[in-house]
């Protein structure tokens, strides 16, 4: 039985790209309203693991997941699950910002119009709230009608966060959300995440060890498709149990 406070509970998750197995028996518990950092060398399966939580991998032919992933106690790998509702509840931020070719306002309104019956006034309110929630409102309130693609990279990423928040998710998955963003923009997003943790369960993939130790509560270290060690971030970075983890967090390989 799953413990109540775990938002996500992964059991013996295996993942295949055609014949190539990328994840091996992943077991991972993710606590609600915490930030969990997923770290590990390039190609170890971090993105692959994250992309199971909202079943986004199903866009691509030949990719399949085996095992169980419980979200709020329900196995989301069950074929009978409502995929569109799952994805509303589990938002995702990608490495490269992907503003839609439409105005800032319409970008954020997109998921609202998609999922909620809201009047024009309610939509406008929700857009503003989401933009405030993503710490972007002050910068864009005078250019809501301008193209979302005309913003700076960091602003585009926060626009994507606002758009994800607007769907009112419970979980936010972030796959290297700041690796394409300059240091100032990165700092803003990190501050933002610290505030978002109150409302959402956040899982973030990062290559930046400082970032992981600064913002996360729990850290999971992946290596060659397996989860080597999971624990409180402080412990992972100061006193890891596993030699591989120690070598990785101390920068001896990566």
């Amino acid at each position, binding site marked *: 039985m799953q413990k109540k406070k775990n938002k996500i509970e992964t059991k013996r998750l295996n993942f295949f790209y055609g014949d190539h197995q990328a994840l091996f028996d992943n077991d991972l518990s993710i606590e609600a309203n915490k930030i969990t950092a997923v770290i590990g060398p390039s190609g170890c399966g971090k993105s692959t693991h994250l992309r199971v939580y909202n079943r*986004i991998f199903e866009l691509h032919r030949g990719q399949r997941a085996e095992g169980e992933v419980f979200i709020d106690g329900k196995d989301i790998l069950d074929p009978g699950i409502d995929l569109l509702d799952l994805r509303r509840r589990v*938002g995702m931020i990608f490495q490269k910002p*992907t503003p839609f070719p439409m105005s800032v306002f319409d970008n954020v309104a*997109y998921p609202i119009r998609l999922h909620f019956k809201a009047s024009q006034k309610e939509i406008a309110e929700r857009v503003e709230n989401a933009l405030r929630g993503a710490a972007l409102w002050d910068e864009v309130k005078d250019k809501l009608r301008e193209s979302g693609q005309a913003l700076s990279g960091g602003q585009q990423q926060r626009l994507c966060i606002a758009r994800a928040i607007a769907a009112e998710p419970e979980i936010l998955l972030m796959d290297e959300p700041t690796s394409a963003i300059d240091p100032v923009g990165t700092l803003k997003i990190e501050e933002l995440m610290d505030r978002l943790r109150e409302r959402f369960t956040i899982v973030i993939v990062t290559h930046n060890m400082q970032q992981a130790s600064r913002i996360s509560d729990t850290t999971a270290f992946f290596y060659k498709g397996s989860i080597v060690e999971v624990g409180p971030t402080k412990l992972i970075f100061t006193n890891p149990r596993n030699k591989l983890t120690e070598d990785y967090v101390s920068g001896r390989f990566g």
Partner: protein
Amino acid sequence: MKTRSTFFRKTKDSLMRAFSGFATSMALVLMAWVIFTIVREGHSSISAELFLNASKPFGEVGGGIANALLGTVMITAGAAALALPPALAAGIWLAEFGKDSLLARAARFTVNVMMGVPSVIVGLFAYGVLVTTTGHFSGFAGSFALAILMFPVVVRTTEDQFSGIGDALRESLLALGASRARSTLTVIWRAARSGVVTGVLLAVARVSGETAPLLFTALFADTWPTSYFSGPTPSAPVLITSYTMDSPFESMHRIGWSAALAMAVILLAVNITARYFGAKRAAKRK
């Protein structure tokens, strides 16, 4: 080890440059030559009457080309109405859903074959299924023939434009909880739109000048195109051909050249519009 002499490579490089420079200027010279000739031959009988009146029967002096231009617009618009909905749908399906499936590969192959079928054969086919069966020529049969020529081109451009859009956009739409169909018809379409419009305009412009298929189908008439579905319908390409080639009268030759000039100007305008959409897309990519 001895290094290879760079002499030949350098010579080859200069020859290559000289040749491509020459080819480019040849293209420009040819283009200018075509335009110059059409303007020289066609400008003298350009007048308001030409664009207001229908053509007169063979040999009668006077008359305009307005009926032929209108007929061309109707036949081309009819072709677009027939070809675009299925072609856009097929192009989108190939890029978004068919991908590498057997059906998609078969469809792609068919489209490629269709693209290579000579327009005269397409015209003959339309004649066989729409003219001999109904017993009359018609503008609609012409539209049908042109639609067959337009279809594969539009399928290809549409597929190209949609598959040119990265999966990142698709994934971020799905990640918000949008369905495949909805994201395709809203956001992906928006991203692909200007490129598709460019391709469609070029395809429309291309078939509007086709003559051979119309000789089998729409034929020609010295009347306004009132019987689009049931009778011969005039068109600019056929007027140009018959006035300049089949007529002994100098006045008709002049009108034929003027029609060619009018056609060229109109198509140039369509091309510039298409480029404008294309340029907007290129600017957005930056």
